[in-house]
């Protein structure tokens, strides 16, 4: 009958073997280590804040329409910064994600979403009234129909590109969904600051986008394990 070695003896033998290889082949131990991912960070400055979408003029509407929520105005200051050309391996399949774009106070919240392909976006209705989410964008043409408060309907975005989302009932409701085939993008905060992490070292073209306006691609070199700074000015 074959006698099995206890685990402690096995571990000892493995360590000895590794040390032996290391001493016997010093060149191998000095081989170049894998490049460390870096990051790109900076700020997107908007010369002019984009105006919120006005509701369609309808002189027959009775009463005064509600004004756009203040949060909606501020959310338009958020931009998206992304790599125009992604590094090799960036397009590998990732876990399908699920995010939410709410409909609240006749506003899509958030106003801008940046997602990867394969992501499903849920569109809950948090208002008392009906909403009807739809898009006629080339990469995602869909209509979720009218549904009431408390209900939600999903849509999966499988193609990269920019999707404009509207409500069929409320003309002033609109939002952007930017769908990327890679994960190298970031949404700025309300001050315009962004950071794209886990970028392999190399030189890339980076684009800043805000409310349908994309700046010219800007080159940036990400150092090994370092952080590259890149600011943009739009509008």
């Amino acid at each position, binding site marked *: 009958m074959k006698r099995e070695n206890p685990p402690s003896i096995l571990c000892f033998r493995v360590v000895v073997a590794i040390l032996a290889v290391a001493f016997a082949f010093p060149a191998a131990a000095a081989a170049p280590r894998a490049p460390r991912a870096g990051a790109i960070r900076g700020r997107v400055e908007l010369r002019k804040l984009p105006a919120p979408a006005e509701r369609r003029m309808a*002189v027959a509407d009775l009463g005064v329409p509600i004004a756009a929520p203040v949060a909606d105005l501020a959310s338009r200051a958020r931009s998206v910064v992304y790599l125009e050309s992604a590094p090799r391996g960036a397009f590998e399949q990732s876990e399908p994600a699920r995010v939410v774009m709410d409909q609240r106070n006749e506003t899509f919240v958030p106003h801008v979403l940046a997602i990867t392909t394969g992501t499903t976006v849920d569109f809950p209705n948090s208002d*008392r009234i009906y909403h009807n989410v739809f898009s006629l964008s080339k990469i995602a043409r869909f209509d979720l129909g009218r549904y009431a408060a408390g209900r939600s309907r999903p849509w999966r975005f499988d193609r990269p590109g920019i999707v404009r989302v509207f409500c069929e009932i409320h003309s002033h409701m609109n939002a952007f969904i930017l769908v990327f085939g890679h994960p190298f993008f970031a949404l700025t905060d309300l001050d315009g600051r962004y950071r794209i992490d886990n970028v392999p070292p190399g030189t890339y073209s980076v684009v800043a986008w805000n409310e349908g306006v994309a700046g010219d691609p800007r080159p940036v070199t990400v150092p090994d394990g370092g952080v590259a700074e890149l600011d943009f000015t739009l509008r």
Partner: protein
Amino acid sequence: MHRPARPVWLSPLAPGVLALALLGAPRSACAQGFLSGPIVFADGHVTLGGNISATIGSDDPGFFNYTDYEHSALRMLRIDLSGAARLAGDHLALVGELRTENFHDLQPYALYVRVRPWSARAFDVGIGRIPPTFGAFARRLYPSDNPLIGYPLAYQYLTSLRPDAVPATADELLRRRGLGWLTRYSIGNAAADHGVPLVSAFRWDTGVQVHAATASGVWSGTASLTRGTVANPVFHDDNSGPQIAGRLQVNPTAGLVVGASAARGPFVTSTAARGAVGDGRDREFTQTAYGADVEYSRGYYLVRGETIVSEWRLPLVRQPWLTLPLRAVAVAVEGRYKILPGLYAAARVDHLGFSRIAGSATTASWDAPVWRSEIGVGYSIMRNLIVKASFQHNVRDGGPLKRHENQTAAQVVFWF
């Protein structure tokens, strides 16, 4: 019989050129970026919007689709330019709209001051040429709000009644059955002119309107005092009494809207009333209208129904007397279903009936009853660019004009 000259734009090529211009311009300008919404300037105090629709349809020898602006609703280039100037935040605004149909003339369709005394309360007062209080369809005034191309009969079909000319006898009225497009009577204005629909969708009345809603928005009510009537909205008063109109609307649950309306006011002009029965009685000759409407939508479908009853009291001049009130009842049901994103199908069934009066030789409805059914499709090329096509079947039970008519129409609608 007089018929308006065909406008220049109705040449066979014109609608196509316009459609191409509309299709081409926005597309070349970055998806939804070109005039995809109202134009706002003066720090957000002024908002401008526009609606353009070009409709081309087959010939209408039965005059089923003529409007009170003497244009066929199926052959029309309509341009609306609307604007609102906020003068004191949400408290005071000037709202107006200019409209031209077939470039014939420019009409101030709407022009009113809107006052909201309390920001936190849904209570508004409109003064001027104000939105309609009565009915549901009248506030869906843009072609993009209408799933089809034709209008409901109650809001468009011209009956044989006129406010400025009245028949002396029941026989005279019966002779004008089915001739609402162009009619004349022996009392009042002797010139031939068109009659009125039950409720005009093409003109607004002038006066004061009060609108209020509960905080939840479930209930809302509107009342107005205007110079004309629902059938004959006017800018300058043409008789001695105002119209009172009211509407109550409830939204008990999301997607369901139920409304009831009523209106009453002097219909016959002072001149015509004087010619019929002498001075001082024009307040007696009224139009009274009642309406009920319901709308339900869910998922991909939307259903609407509306009924309107209108009663007119005209002067009794000679025998055989008119049997008063002269009543008209309209019922319309329409539905829309979205087949694909941007593509929908729609249908409407419509009937307009009239009460019977006794002439010296016959008893008949005072105007010829009309049935209309219309089916159509609409496709959104962009959110604010829609193309529609429809087929309409009209039947009129009486009158000297063509009684059965099939019509096809196509429409391009662009709004910003």
